[in-house]
């Protein structure tokens, strides 16, 4: 199975949200990284057929969405970012409704609903109305509905946003369980989430792919560009103004800085093994740092 994204564009007035994107995706987990406004959600909505591209095409095994019609959507599971539920439906009703939307017959719908509610640990509250659910419970219900039709393409847009660390770990494990033999595209700007489960990293900026690499080699490009050194508080503030500081750690009266930079920030600095977060900061610089002040990053 291959999902081909060919010269895909989405234009909103003069703004190009997705700009001539190309990719050939085979089964595996793809972490789609990018700052807010990079075009991740627009790209995912086009892959899901919710948004019509301005130009370009999306093909599954060589056929476009239009050619495949309902057949394409039967391969698809989508969990949009911040999507709403029907507050007056119970979790079970919501799943059965989504099963009907996905074209499952009544028997299969019931079986899959029970299986998935069990998998996402919502079986005991399956008859409770969704409006009584916490954010984490809703997210779990969200991924359960995406899995109803056992899709071969699973699109998850910021699935861990707003979850506490325990819920996020639980969620990552769920995604790993569901990901076998599928094309999973997982969009997030929480870098650590994808570093655990992604096989490939797609990095997006200004509507374009900056890079697409397997997880093992994705950081190779910044080897020798991540530095650590100790400095005092006053100088740490000065370094922060001139470099992209990944991490800042107080040790006695000193501060250990981790900086990503093409050149050594100081003669004392030593290179260290780069992480995905270093890579993210290397490419997104101030965008990423401003987001880090708003989002949970571990």
């Amino acid at each position, binding site marked *: 199975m291959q999902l081909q994204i060919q010269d895909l564009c989405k234009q909103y007035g003069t703004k190009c949200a997705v700009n001539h994107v190309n990719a050939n995706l085979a089964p595996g987990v793809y972490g789609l990284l990018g700052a807010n406004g990079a075009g991740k959600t627009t790209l995912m909505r086009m892959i*899901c057929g*919710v948004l*019509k591209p301005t130009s370009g095409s999306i093909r599954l095994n060589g056929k476009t969405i239009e050619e495949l019609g*309902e057949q394409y959507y039967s391969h698809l599971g989508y969990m949009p970012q911040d999507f*709403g539920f029907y507050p007056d*439906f119970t979790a079970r009703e919501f799943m*059965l*409704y*989504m099963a009907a939307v996905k*074209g499952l017959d009544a028997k299969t719908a019931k079986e899959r609903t029970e299986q998935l509610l069990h998998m996402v640990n919502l079986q005991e509250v399956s008859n409770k109305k969704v409006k009584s659910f916490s954010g984490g419970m809703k997210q779990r219900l969200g991924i359960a509905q995406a899995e109803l039709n056992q899709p071969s393409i699973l699109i998850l847009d910021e699935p861990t946003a707003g979850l506490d660390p325990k819920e996020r770990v639980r969620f990552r494990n769920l995604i790993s369980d569901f990901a076998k033999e599928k094309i999973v595209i997982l969009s997030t700007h929480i870098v650590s989430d994808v570093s655990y489960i992604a096989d490939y990293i797609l990095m997006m900026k200004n509507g374009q792919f900056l890079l697409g690499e397997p997880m093992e080699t994705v950081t190779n490009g910044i080897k020798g560009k991540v530095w650590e050194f100790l400095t005092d508080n006053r100088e740490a503030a000065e370094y922060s103004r001139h470099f992209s500081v990944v991490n800042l750690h107080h040790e006695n009266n000193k501060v250990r800085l981790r900086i990503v930079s093409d050149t050594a920030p100081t003669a004392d600095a030593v290179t260290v093994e780069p992480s995905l977060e270093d890579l993210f900061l290397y490419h997104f610089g101030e965008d990423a740092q401003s987001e880090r002040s708003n989002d949970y990053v571990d």
Partner: protein
Amino acid sequence: MLIKYEFLKILRKKSTIIVMVISLLLTAFLFGLPILQFQTYNQDGVIKGFDGIAYEKEQYKDLSVPITDEYVTRTIAEYQKLFENPDNVGYDGNEKFLIGDAYWDYVAPRENLLSSIASVYDAPGENSGLNKLPELDLTNGANFYQARNEKIESLLNTPSRNLSDEQKEYWSNMAGKVDTPLQYGYHEGWEVIITSFELLMFAMLAVCIVIAPVFSGEYQAGTDAVILSGKYGKTKLVTAKIISSLLFGVLAFTLHIIVAFGLPLAAFGTDGWNLPLQIAGMTIPYPYTFLQATLINLGVIYLVLIAMIGLTLLLSAKMKSPYLVLIVLVPVLFIPLFLSPNGTTGAYNLTLFLLPYRSTMPEIGKYISYQIGGIVFDVLSIRAILYAVLTAIMLPLARLGIKKH
């Protein structure tokens, strides 16, 4: 299955229950008012409410007769005879009228019938009450139906109506199909219904409010992406939403109809269902009984309702929030309420009679017709055609709207 869940989605919302309860109470109040306000009178004074209704029914027992020429002649002759006695006649400086026992024993019990008979001898646009009855020449009988036909001809030839020859012929033919002699009788419940149809606009609005979020609510809640990416999200689900909306609309509206018609019919009785419309207006051209006219106009109103559901769904598919849908819809439904016709011809009037609010009113006595080429349509037929066509246009457009969303 999808229809069931879409129907459930509509029913489960608290707002649905609230809107429906308010609307049903309002409908019950509006259609209950004629019962609460009903009053008749006799020599002892005013009789109100159910006592008044019972008294009125009793009075009509002797009046359930065929209005033959002979009956009209005899009735007018009796009236004239009473008028011959000066003791029975009062004068207010302007007109003469029967007073005392002559009034209470003869006129009061049959005042509506006498007024209906007298109206036939008035010129178009004239309303002289019973004043013409004492002067009518009965030498060759009252010639009631001849006078009625002549009045209808005069009405059709009134210059301000500006009717074409085809339209005049259409109405003459229709009026000619009215069975005579007309059967008179008690029909209060049906008259309340026939004159109150426009009050159903509130029920129509309530239905539109409830279904306004069918598509736009999905956009607003952010559930559009998840359903549109489902296998049937752009196909069967859209159909299910349209069907469930229509189903809900028709059922909810029918519930309102049951309340609206049930109250007057329960209070005033169903008597008169088989009586001709003409006893409520002698020049009405439609050859229907009260029940037939009610059902025909109700059929038209259901078509208006379905078209309004179609419009609501189209707006809902195009707009991002149910509130925006209502901002467009409410004026469409209610601005015509503030526009009055100034005649029965001309583009303004002919358009006004086709707008949703006016389309609920049967307008059975106004000879409103529309001519397309050589074909003439009465207002009820053209409304039925117009709203069926609008439905046929708007529902596919709503489908397209959601597909292109």
